[in-house]
């Protein structure tokens, strides 16, 4: 039954993708691309908060590092796969450094230092004009894949979709692997995890690094269909969007993140013109879920276990 459902699900997604590719308007394709990027970015936060239980408020920074690094590599005419790798790795290295800091602190101190890192990176994006273009923004050249330049959202969609599915699959594998269980053991109790032979420090470092890698890769995906990036869109609001996705989806649930990314990716785009409503809705949702359904909307639908 479960297998049948999975096959049907994959078939539905493929059919949806084909229909989308053939008939949807440019804006809808753009929106779907953006949702997929939001999904991968949220998966990144899921790995660090949901799996290992460490708090991070620096995801817009990792995302931004991924975008700029990939865009710079693309500008230098590197092939896309390499450019994406550069974006992911640059973010992962920063994630490793933050992870090293995180070994020394927890809870509130960790939240604050990652927040500080995010704000500092935004300042770097805004002021390192030689590299990022500063307040003028950065014009991203078209991505080249196997010598073929991707010129539109529609052309980028298959690439973005394949990458998103790959990263989702990787996250699922991680969730169900022994490594994922070790991460969750650290989340529940570091002492108990250490007692059964889990290397707590290594797990925490790995969680931050992988999380940043995913965020950086999301940035790389963004460069395939977007032509411009400005530091303003890499601020705290992006972090709050992703945090909302993970919290509302249900901390620790991969499919919850998928659902959350769809709902909030759409909401974010719909409310873009009405920042006041957007902020009020996000604020009310964050407070409401913490009050009434701290385990997320899907846990609430399934009924409390």
């Amino acid at each position, binding site marked *: 039954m479960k297998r049948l459902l999975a096959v049907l699900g994959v078939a539905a997604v493929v059919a949806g993708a084909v229909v989308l590719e053939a008939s949807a308007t440019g804006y809808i394709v753009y929106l779907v691309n953006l949702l997929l990027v939001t999904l991968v970015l949220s998966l990144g936060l899921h790995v660090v*908060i949901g799996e290992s239980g460490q*708090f991070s408020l620096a995801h817009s920074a990792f995302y931004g590092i991924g975008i700029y690094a990939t865009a710079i590599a693309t500008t230098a005419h590197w092939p896309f796969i390499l450019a994406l790798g550069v974006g992911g790795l640059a973010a992962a290295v920063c994630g490793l450094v933050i992870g090293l*800091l995180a070994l*020394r*602190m927890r*809870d*509130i*101190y960790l*939240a*604050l*230092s990652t*927040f*500080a*890192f995010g*704000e*500092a990176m935004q*300042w770097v994006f805004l*002021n390192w004009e030689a590299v990022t273009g500063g307040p003028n923004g950065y014009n991203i050249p078209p991505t080249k894949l196997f010598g073929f330049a991707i010129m539109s959202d529609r052309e980028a969609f298959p690439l973005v979709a394949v990458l998103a599915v790959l990263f989702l699959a990787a996250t699922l594998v991680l969730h169900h692997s022994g490594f994922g269980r070790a991460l969750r053991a650290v989340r529940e109790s570091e*002492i108990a995890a250490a007692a059964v032979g889990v290397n707590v420090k290594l797990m925490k470092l790995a969680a931050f690094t992988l999380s940043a890698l995913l965020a950086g890769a999301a940035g790389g995906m963004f460069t395939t269909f977007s032509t411009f990036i400005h530091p303003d869109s890499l601020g705290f609001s992006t972090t*709050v969007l992703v*945090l909302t996705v993970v*919290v509302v989806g249900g901390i620790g649930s991969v499919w919850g993140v998928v659902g959350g990314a769809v709902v909030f990716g759409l909401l974010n785009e719909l409310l873009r013109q009405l*920042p*006041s*409503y*957007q*902020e*009020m*809705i*996000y*604020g*009310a*949702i*964050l*407070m*409401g879920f*913490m*009050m009434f359904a*701290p385990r997320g909307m899907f846990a609430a639908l399934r009924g409390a276990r």
Partner: protein
Amino acid sequence: MDLEVVWLFVQQGVASGLVSGAVYALLALAIVIVYRTTDVANFAQGEIYMAASYLAFFLIVVFAAPILLAIPLTILIVCGGAAVFQRLVLARVASVRGVSVNLVIATLGLSYFLKGMVRFSGFGDAPRSFPSVVPDGALTIGDASLSYLDIVIFVTSLVVMALFFWMFTFTKTGRAMRAVGMNRRAAALVGISLTRVQMQVWACSGGISAIAALLIAPKLLLTVEMGHVATLAFAAAIVGGFTSLPGAVVGGFIIGIAENLVGLFVSSRAIVVTPFVVIMLVLILKPQGLFGGAVRVRKV
């Protein structure tokens, strides 16, 4: 750089740093008392302060309320609002699951909600300037020059802090707050009502934020993003150790002075990044802050 200029810059930097540091110290105090007694790192601190500024602006400019009525009214409303938030939202979040991360997310929710409200009210669209009651003019101390407003800000902050420490040391309410901050269980056992004390602490914290807002609003333009000041207060609280009240005050002055010296000696663009560098440095070198005491190991 000339030695004379350096000396002038140092004097001006310290003087201006003491003034802005006093406001950061106030906000840091508000953050620290809340953290000690309710375990909540209030990420909405800056937005409470922002909303208080707009509330005062609204009362004075739209309702044309006299200043002497608007000031206490603002403080009272913000006190009440903070207490209600603690009672309605945070108490519930803490009871569902006592994880500090959930509490942080709830305060992030409040911060977004407040920003949205101010934008929605239509006042947040353009920067506004707050009417000042203090006459223009400046005083020269040594080689540093401070405006009358600066002096008023500094003195009032010191008075508020002194009142606050007096309350904490000598009044029954203040001592109950301290008891809750030290050991919640023991405090409850000797008959202190946790619900009431935690609400009172939030009310206090709201009141301090409102006072800080009223003090500095005339110096700045009101914008929805002005809550950023709270990151400086957080930096101050971290430098001081996050659980220490005197630490918060000292941290506030350190951050204020560091910021002004960086502005004078490096560049005004580097001011923004100073608190983050300070936070990172302190957390790396001394994760418990200057007054935070030794690392407590939690045993199973």
